[in-house]
């Protein structure tokens, strides 16, 4: 079995939301002495990227995306376990959370999983996270990116607080910030001074990848 075929099968296992197939591909890759890190980035991650694009175009929906993300998480965990997690180098670090006063976290959870699936170390701060906590945790974990989600018109103001605190503390240039959530718009991101507005999980991944390519901060 050649490398390209195995990568294609890994890609397909994510698109088809097929966990058994994903586990079999990892075994086949090992049997054929294929680098598992390469399998993760060229096979599984390529599948999750395509799925993210399909979601962005409205061709697949939330259940399929969530399920495939779970398959991806399991494949990543198995590979990391086989290699020892230290050998799977993370490309960047990010904190993410739903802002204070807001308990909606489905969208944030998906962004978290998808970004993680693309080799970024993600610290999920959960929901109802105060603005200051985003910054304290960003400092503590020495991250590159801060992502916040707000699903209510009234909690969007917390995203502004994050920007205000960063500016006040002289930390604004240290991090890239992204904002998302149903009522959030590009105009809002510009108004509060966030670096990016991401409409959905796929856009969030693209933005993070773009920042990494550009050298992060």
């Amino acid at each position, binding site marked *: 079995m050649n490398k390209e075929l195995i990568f294609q099968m890994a890609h397909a296992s994510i698109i088809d939301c097929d966990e058994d197939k994903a586990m079999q591909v990892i075994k086949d890759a090992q049997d054929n002495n294929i680098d598992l890190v390469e399998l993760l980035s060229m096979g599984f991650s390529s599948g999750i990227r395509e799925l993210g694009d399909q979601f962005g175009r*409205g061709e697949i*929906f939330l*259940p*399929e995306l*969530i*399920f495939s993300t779970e398959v991806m998480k399991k494949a990543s965990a198995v590979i990391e376990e086989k290699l020892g997690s230290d050998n799977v180098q993370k490309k960047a670090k990010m904190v993410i959370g739903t802002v204070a006063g807001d*308990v909606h976290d489905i969208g944030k959870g998906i962004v978290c999983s998808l970004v993680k699936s693309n080799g970024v170390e993600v610290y999920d701060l959960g929901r109802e996270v105060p603005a200051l906590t985003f910054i304290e945790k960003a400092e503590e974990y020495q991250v590159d990116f801060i992502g916040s989600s707000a699903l209510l018109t*009234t909690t969007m103001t917390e995203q502004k607080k994050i920007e205000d605190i960063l500016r006040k503390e002289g930390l604004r240039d240290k991090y890239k910030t992204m904002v998302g959530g149903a009522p959030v718009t590009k105009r809002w991101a510009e108004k509060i001074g966030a670096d990016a507005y991401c409409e959905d999980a796929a856009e969030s991944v693209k933005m993070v990848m773009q920042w990494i390519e550009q050298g992060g901060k």
Partner: protein
Amino acid sequence: MGKDLLIKTLKHEKTDGVPWVPFAGVHAGKLKGYTAEEVLKDADKLFESLMEVKKIYAPDGMPIMFDLQVEAEILGCDLLWAKDNPPSVKSHPCSGEKSIPCNCKIPTADSGRIPMIVDVMKRMKAAVGEEVALYGLICGPFTLASHLRGSEIFMDMIKDPAYVKELVEFCGEVACKLSEIYIEAGMDVIAVVDPLVSQISPKHFESMLSDSFKATFDFIREKGALSSFFVCGNATRQIKVMCDTNPDSISVDENVNLHDSKLVTDPYNITIGGNIPLTTTMLHGNQQDNMKCVIDLMDSLDHHNLIISPGCDMPYDTPIENTVAVAQAVKRTDDARKMIENYESVEEDIDISIPDYKDRDKVLIELFLLDPEQCAACTYMLNSVVDIYDEIKEMADYVVYKYTIKEDIARTKKMGISNLPTMCVNGEVKWVSIIPSKEEFINEIKKYIKKK
């Protein structure tokens, strides 16, 4: 007009106008200075707020309560309350363990907040039920199922569709029971509000949800009421399968192209409603933006089987004057078109002299109105002065400026007034869209007399 227009539209009859249904949920509380939590828990405050919605926004139809968490709360979900939003569900009783709640938990007329809601429904029916069609809102079976199960329900849809179907069927029974209670309380229309439907594929909708939605709409019809299927988010791909469940109408938000969706609903002879953008236009736009949005919508659509409404539950802080502008544009579209044209064409340099308030013997009340004959809020603001004029005529004069007259628009601009109706006292803005009480109004006039 009014209720009759909306009922005819929902029955797909020919009409000579387009009905207007403001989804003033928690926003109703803003009109009377109450928080979201207050209007969602206190019958008197909710009733008072809804009466203000009727008065200011002149609706053809209106919801009594826009809170999709009523059923979830009864079924054991913990809620997080907010001052300016409906509550959110923060715990899910079926999370972690796949279970179906016992049928003994299906709400009754005595459960949770239902007695309070029914009380307000009956009071509203008695007070305005002849003029305005009243909407009873229930949580749709899929969104209720997600409240009970949490986000695990999306995984279940792939791994265990039979469980999802069973849970949604239970929620469908809850929907029928709530519909029955609300219809008996006098509701003309039952709106089945299911925002999450936009998040799943049409195939999943058909295999796991369709039967429960269809049963709910059939039940509502059997009970003699009309129905509406509300969805939020980009539901473009779901409109067809939603139509297949046979509601009388569908309501969509700004993520859906209303023109294209009407091409799908029209062959089914289903009425469609929507979809003024909630945040960019209603919350953050100005009056001209809101009028223009409605005019553009109405110009782009066949008016048969059409309702104009906000995309979904209006944000609490939606400026009252923006909603007034929407009402004006729906009811007097040609006048609103003219107002915008005038607004855009009026030059700032039309010669307008601002009165010398300090040298006047009497206090000057200036009313800047859209159209006192047609705009309900404007009429009430004007009447608040006219009705007590005999009592104040020794100390004050009043003058009316209309947005239909170019010179008056120029004056409106020169005075720096951006929203109508507005009332100024001696050149100072005192009330925007809010109608002062007699006592408040007279006290304000007296303050100016003391200043002289």
